[in-house]
């Protein structure tokens, strides 16, 4: 994940508390979605950014996950996301992000 984004997210978590943040990913494949989710839940696996060894345990979803998609008005989703549902590996991406979300430290 971009180092600038890591820094910004860490600052927002410090400011509002990690439980108040919800991160939505737009990653193009399961691998990059999983790495981004891991960075947000367990810390930066590359040890390069501000989230290295920082277990924020953030709520992280991919834009294509049903749980998130169901919250968005259908016409807006169709206009903004539309064909990407079929172009990207939606199910595999959703499974990768969900799997990482479930690894969030229970003590917060």
């Amino acid at each position: 994940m971009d180092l600038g984004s890591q820094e910004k997210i860490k600052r927002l978590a410090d400011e509002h508390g990690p439980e108040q943040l919800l991160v939505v990913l737009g990653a193009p494949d399961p691998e990059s979605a999983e790495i981004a989710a891991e960075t947000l839940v367990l810390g930066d696996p590359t040890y390069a950014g501000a989230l290295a060894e920082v277990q924020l345990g953030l709520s992280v979803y991919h834009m294509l996950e049903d749980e998130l998609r169901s919250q968005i008005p259908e016409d807006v989703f169709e206009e903004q996301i539309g064909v990407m549902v079929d172009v990207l590996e939606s199910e595999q991406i959703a499974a990768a992000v969900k799997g990482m979300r479930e690894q969030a430290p229970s003590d917060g």
Partner: protein
Amino acid sequence: MFEGKQVVALGERDGIAGPAIVKCIESAGGNVAFSSTECFV
């Protein structure tokens, strides 16, 4: 789902871009605190 939350939209150029995520979240009443569109080459 978005009530009382600060939403971070981390889009990607080859997937779903940040502004598209922002429009979706805001249309559902969410408050976007930060958004970006990353690019891996």
